């Protein structure tokens, strides 16, 4: 009897020992089934997307449409899963790949493509899409798609930064509501004009994308051509910081610092406390809808220029992960083709405000009607001719978000010397590009 209880204890101990191991095994199992052929013969694929509101609606609607049409016909079922912001997506995609639970297809912020392609997380898409199909995309949108000469990403929800302004407030302040600011000087004087109605003019945060846009519109850039060195401390870069700092001091600008600055800016724009701000064209449909509910009108304009109109493109492309092969790869290719097709591009543009990515949509009658009714939708597209890609070098993201934006925050909130603050930031992050 006694002996038996001893054995029982031993068995229990062994069981406990085995439990964590069994746990490991069972968590590893679904990874194989993440993107797989189910028992019914249907190919199950995971698709990861970013951002909420209209953008989420667009992703879900298009996925549903795919499942109901091509998917049904060819036995493919795609599940769309929300992952947060672009940087959340990047962190999760990387971890998921290490854990072998990555999705088949994902959206990818255009600047991240090189990193993920070089790490072997993505696979080339040269066979997915024909050359004539590629030629249908605007060339500015393809700049971030190639790594070492191979195609890795296909334009999906693409944007340029644009300037949003509150037409209703413009009218109250005695400005022409049909004309947004064209130059930096306009931005300053129009912002100043808002003092009359007790509101702030231009609201902004420290942000890498809008900084790229404003430096470029002043004839500079954040890096040199080869992306081996940061150049945000060039005279053009310093002049840009000077412009914003004097805007806070004399131009009725409002600067939002801190991790939640962008949220505060959104709140202020909805409550009509600021009259102008920068945003992606991808948020246009949402912004227009909010404005309608709240009873004010929104206008859009190019990013104001100092010496030239020049902006980066932005947004996300579609990519395919590298472990897919055979029937699953073909299924993922079907899905990518569907999501980036002219019809889907048109639907995405109308639902969200992201760019109509394809030349074949240029004279589309649906769009012509839409632009007559809401000309705001056309601004980003018109600006596309002045747009080029974003820097993609490894280390760029860390340098620009970790050092440059901190320097900008310091410049906007203190009297620190601009040139030396930017020089110092450059010194800290230049080695990241080597």
């Amino acid at each position: 009897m006694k002996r038996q209880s001893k054995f029982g204890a031993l068995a229990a101990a062994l069981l406990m020992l085995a439990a964590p191991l069994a746990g490991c095994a069972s968590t590893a199992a679904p990874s194989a089934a993440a993107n797989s052929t189910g028992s019914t013969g249907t190919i199950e694929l995971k698709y990861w997307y970013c951002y909420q509101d209209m953008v989420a609606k667009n992703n879900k609607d298009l996925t549903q449409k795919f499942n109901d049409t091509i998917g049904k016909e060819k036995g493919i079922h795609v599940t769309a899963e929300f992952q947060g912001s672009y940087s959340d997506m990047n962190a999760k995609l990387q971890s998921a790949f290490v854990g072998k639970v990555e999705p088949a297809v994902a959206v990818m912020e255009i600047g991240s493509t090189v990193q993920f392609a070089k790490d072997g997380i993505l696979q080339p898409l040269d066979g997915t899409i024909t050359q004539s199909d590629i030629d249908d995309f605007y060339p500015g949108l393809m700049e971030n798609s190639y790594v070492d000469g191979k195609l890795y990403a296909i334009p999906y929800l693409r944007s340029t930064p644009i300037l949003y302004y509150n037409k209703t407030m413009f009218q109250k302040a005695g400005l022409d509501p049909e004309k947004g600011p064209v130059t930096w000087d306009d931005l300053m004087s129009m912002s100043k004009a808002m003092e009359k109605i007790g509101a702030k003019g231009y609201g902004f945060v420290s942000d890498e994308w809008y900084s790229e846009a404003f430096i470029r519109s002043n004839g500079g850039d954040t890096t040199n051509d080869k992306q081996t060195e940061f150049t945000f401390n060039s005279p053009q870069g310093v002049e840009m910081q000077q412009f914003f700092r004097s805007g806070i001091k004399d131009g009725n600008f409002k600067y939002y610092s801190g991790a939640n600055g962008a949220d505060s800016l959104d709140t202020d724009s909805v409550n009509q406390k600021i009259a102008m701000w920068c945003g992606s064209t991808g948020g246009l449909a949402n912004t227009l809808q909010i404005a309608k509910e709240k009873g004010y009108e929104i206008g859009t304009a190019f990013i104001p220029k100092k010496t030239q109109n020049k902006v980066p493109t932005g947004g996300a492309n579609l990519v395919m992960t590298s472990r897919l092969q055979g029937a699953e790869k073909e299924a993922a290719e079907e899905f990518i083709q569907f999501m980036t097709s002219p019809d889907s591009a048109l639907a995405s543009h109308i639902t969200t405000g992201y760019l109509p990515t394809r030349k074949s949509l240029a004279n589309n009658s649906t769009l012509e009607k839409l632009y007559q009714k809401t000309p705001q939708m056309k601004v980003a597209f018109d600006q596309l001719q002045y747009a080029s890609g974003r820097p993609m070098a490894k280390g760029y993201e860390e340098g620009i978000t970790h050092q440059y934006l901190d320097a900008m925050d310091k410049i906007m909130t203190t009297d620190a010397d601009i040139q030396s603050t930017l020089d110092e930031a450059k010194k800290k992050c230049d080695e990241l590009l080597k």
Partner: protein
Amino acid sequence: MKKKFLSIGKPYLLIAPAMAAFLLFSIYPVMSMVQLSLFDWNMISPEKDFIGLANYQKLFYDEDFRQTLLNTAVFTVFSVLGDIGLGLLIALYLKKNTLVNRIMQSVIFAPYIISLASISLLWMWLMNPDYGLLNAALEALHIPGINWLGSPQYAMLSVILICVWKSVGYDAMILLAALQSVPENLYEAAALDRASWWRKLTKVTLPMISPTLFFLTIVETIASFNVFETIQILTRGGPQNSTDTIVFSLYQYGFKFYRIGYASTIGVVLMIIMTLFTIVYFVLLSKRVHYQ
């Protein structure tokens, strides 16, 4: 012979499951972290460059990391002091078992059980520079408003304030339990000797609850040193690195900038600091702790 082997082997056999879990989930990750700290790697790329101690060298000269260490130290010292100091005051006040005090106990403990995300959102709203309640109160007193979480001068203070507010209830409860378990006859004896209130506190109460104080200090220090979620939600290390702590920067390097080698180096340094802390605590404080 066989019997002897069993009697020696049995204890080891019995602790084997726990040891296996410990080795697998604690020792193995620590070892691989130490190993990773010698490489330049991003977790995925097939190229894993061995660079020896270069990460440590870089970390040693990294100004941002020095700022991070300082931030973490400031956060730890003030949140531990705040938690335990305030917790003790509250516990002393609530010691008398009345109805009001029992209600107060629940009220003070409540923030501890609410999720950090909800609390952070609540405080972000209270601390909003334009619409927040705190600045409205300051303005009513004709004091200019503060950009609580958005300025380098006040961000750390604000984060500490929120953390202390959240966890002080836990410390107060533990200390209250300790206070109530101090034998009443000790106070009676002290009263017979006409000991003052202050003497009773320093010569009876504090020594008697010193094991609890010791326990709380260690637990709170370790928790504060490892602070992450609060920073992630409230400030993301900003503005201008003013609230960037060791664990948050480890996360940023590892999972945002894909430099797992450098992140591991920070992890190793963190581990060394924590080990030193624990040793110093046990050597110095345990001499002064009164166990019954």
